[in-house]
């Protein structure tokens, strides 16, 4: 994902001299290195100084520029939180805060490098928009949108590397709308971000027993496609939410809220990270499994095993 982000941003920045990339000591992979050498005046490395990263982006945007703040998710959102809130959101500036390696992707780095509550944290701030693409192609769509939008601040939640292509046959990407990766009649699976691969795999498991599943990339977490989710709740007997985020304040919690609001009659299963710091130092799938987000556990809990 980060390579596709860098590649797309490079293309956008080549065409738009107002795009600045302000990073906090993160290795410039792929085209990010090319951008930094070709446009050194628009590539700023603040070092390990994330508060100034956000403040500088705010100042650039106050002068009409289109900045991106880019580093590992926990350091782009949590460390400079008040700058994100006051400088970007309160002033409603078109700055994209890129959280790379969100969720528990930095599994073996420990809890200091995990971003498990970012949707709740970012989503609580007025004016903030949140986009979390499910695969590299969706990263390209989302990055292009971020580079051109003037609505206000965006938190762009990214994975890291090696994510599979999930959107080859998907409907076109549109900001603020659920995107069907496939359509079915019996079950609807809502997910976003890297863990969307588990949603697709779960749909295959349903297909194997003759049940067709709709799989949605709920890439825009704020504003959430409330109408789309309500339709999904109304037209499927079984809705499953899978997200790499704590239970509070994310897609699962909001889907439950919508289900209550419309008195939905479907079965609703939600799978999230635990509300817990788990001291597991394995790989990403190990960490997800420790939180209960393995395909086998989810399959069992939805009645497939």
């Amino acid at each position, binding site marked *: 994902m980060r390579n596709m982000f860098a590649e797309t941003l490079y293309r956008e920045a080549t065409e738009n001299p107002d795009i600045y990339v302000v990073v906090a000591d993160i290795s410039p992979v792929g085209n990010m290195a090319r951008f930094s050498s070709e446009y050194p*005046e628009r590539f700023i490395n603040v070092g390990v100084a994330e*508060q*100034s990263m956000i*403040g500088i982006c*705010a100042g650039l945007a*106050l002068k009409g520029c289109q900045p991106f703040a880019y580093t590992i998710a926990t350091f782009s959102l949590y460390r400079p939180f008040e700058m994100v809130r006051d*400088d970007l959101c*309160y*002033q409603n500036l078109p700055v994209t805060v890129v959280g790379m390696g969100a969720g528990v992707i930095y599994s073996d780095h420990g809890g200091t490098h995990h971003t498990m509550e970012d949707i709740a944290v970012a989503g609580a701030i007025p004016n903030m928009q949140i986009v979390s693409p499910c695969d590299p192609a969706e990263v390209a769509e989302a990055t292009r949108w971020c580079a051109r939008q003037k609505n206000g601040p965006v938190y762009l939640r990214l994975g890291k590397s090696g994510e599979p292509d999930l959107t080859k046959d998907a409907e076109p990407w549109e900001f603020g709308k659920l995107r069907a990766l496939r359509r079915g009649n019996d079950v609807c699976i809502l997910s976003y971000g890297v863990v969307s691969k588990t949603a697709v795999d779960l749909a295959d498991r349903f297909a194997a027993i003759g049940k067709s599943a709709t799989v949605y990339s709920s890439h825009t977490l704020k504003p959430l496609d409330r109408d789309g989710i309500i339709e999904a709740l109304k037209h499927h007997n079984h809705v499953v939410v899978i997200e790499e985020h704590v239970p509070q304040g994310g897609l699962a919690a909001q889907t439950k809220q919508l289900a209550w609001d419309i008195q939905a009659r479907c079965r609703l299963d939600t799978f999230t990270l635990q509300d817990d710091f788990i001291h597991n130092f394995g790989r990403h799938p190990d960490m997800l499994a420790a939180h209960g987000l393995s395909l086998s556990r989810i399959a069992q809990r939805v009645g497939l095993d």
Partner: protein
Amino acid sequence: MTLPGNGFDIRQARERCRRYRRRILDISQQVQALHIGSAYSCTEVVDCFYHGLMRRNPDGCSPDTFLMSKGHGCMIQYVILEEDGILSRADLDGYCKADGHLGVHPDYGIPGIAAATGSLGHGLSMACGMALAERGRKTGGRIYVVLSDGEVQEGSTWEAVLMASSLRLDNLIAAVDNNDLQSLGRTSVTHPSLYPLVDKFTAFGWEVAEVDGHDSEAIFGAVTNRGGGRPFMLVAKTTKGKGVSYMENVPIWHYRSPSLDEYRRAIDELESAR
């Protein structure tokens, strides 16, 4: 006396600053509290930035930007913007009222206000971003920013200090309103190692000058005589509540409105200083 360059007349500056203090006193009688001491502390610095240093295009607009990082001192900015015709008398009459749009801290979107401040330690980073944008667009625009000395305790301020010099932002001109007071006492007592400030900013690669922050001529001279090529920091030695004897260096006047009797005494002092 008129100094060369921008036609900055010192006698007129003194008269303006007296007028501004008087206007702030008048507004103080409309509200229960305001940051009067903080505004009086930086009156000469802000006046000199606006009327001595920031340039004016023929259309009246300035290519330069003023940012009040110590947002609580914004009463002085409001009264300057009022006198310069950017804010109206009605705007200031609505200060901190339900149907007004001027608050205790400057709000983005208000005419003449370049950024929302109030939480300390934000302004200098935003000023760096603005300076970077002006440089990128080759506009020649300069960014003037005023910080409090309490604000210099914020880690985020030092991140920005480090970045401004690393980026060689020579279009960034900052001032620290060094009145040595914050809510709970003297900054030099709570943080003795932070002083002298000049050494700290110099060590971080800034060009620095220290002046009497109530001496308009000295402020103007220090900034106009800077060498350039890097960001400039003016350490303005000031007195909190300057101009009204019973307010000077008395912490309670950080955020308080004078009683009617106190108001009259203050007016007498300001008028007798003409």
